[in-house]
């Protein structure tokens, strides 16, 4: 799945254009960064309410495709700048995390790559 398709399904604004060549291969939802650090995957779309700079560090560590913020959350400029540098797309959706995960799953984005 492309990042554009994720953004369309999520009705999301793209706050940072990452590396749009990255294929979105799987999804995950969690707000504890230490937890995600142990479970992240390449190409992951990660749904979280955390907007701290460490989110981008964890996402780039795993070469994730995008970070998806629910409930219309925003991210600070400096954090978005880092996301662009690291090639991580940041999307902000008006939908809840629950709804986002349901939508993405229904459209074929599962929790494991492949």
């Amino acid at each position, binding site marked *: 799945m492309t990042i554009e398709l994720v953004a369309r399904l999520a009705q999301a604004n793209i706050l940072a254009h990452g590396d749009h060549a990255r294929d979105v291969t799987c999804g995950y939802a969690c707000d*504890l*960064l*230490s937890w*995600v650090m142990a479970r992240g995957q390449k190409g992951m779309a990660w749904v979280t309410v955390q907007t*701290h*700079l*460490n989110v981008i560090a*964890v996402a780039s560590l795993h070469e994730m495709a995008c970070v998806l913020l629910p409930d219309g959350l925003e991210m600070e400029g400096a954090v978005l700048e880092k996301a662009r540098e690291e090639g991580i797309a940041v999307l902000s959706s008006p939908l809840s995390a629950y709804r986002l995960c349901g939508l993405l799953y229904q459209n074929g984005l599962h929790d494991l790559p492949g």
Partner: protein
Amino acid sequence: MKLAYDLHLHSCLSPCASEDMTPQNVCRMARLNGLDLIALTDHNTGGNLKAFDQAAREHGLLFLPGMELCTAEEVHLLAYFPSLEAALEADARLPHLRGSMKNRPDYFGQQTLVDHRDRVLGQEEAFLLGALATSLEETVSWITSFHGVAVPAHIHRSYGLVQVLGFIPQSAGFRAVEAGPKDQIDENYLVLHSSDAHELGLIAQKEHLISAEKNLDSIISTLQYGITV
């Protein structure tokens, strides 16, 4: 000199702490345990600091005024101040950051305000266990604006910096962290081992020492720079 310390204590004002955690009880227990230096760090408030400051003085303990603040990320951050006045000034600004939720004592516990003789002055009505509106870095700057120093609490436990945010962000400029005695911490940090006592029996024994002069400015700069200066 080396001071035996416990820099993470809750009073009866924290809803989750025992009602026995009054100024006289805590100070007596700290003396029995052989401590030289204690800090009061209630959740998102400095409401009992004045009472503890006075009681600690009576019992010959050095008292560091503090708070345990919960940032928007739900990271627990200890704030320590160089004087009671600075801490009370910060406390007066906290209602702006705390939000409007009221405590539910039946659900969360009592939030008891006391004087230095353990007399009950009343109940704090604002809910003290929520997250502040400020992010981690904003909360650090806020603490610094009152000449205080921020130390992340129990970094590997629930609500700890590393537990929530995965690792210690360099941007926040921490030089001291609180951790468990068995935690592996980068040697560049001054590591504090305080009790986080919510009841009298859990206050630290004389087992962890900090190198500093016996005054608050020296303690604050030790925490600020990670070394005794």
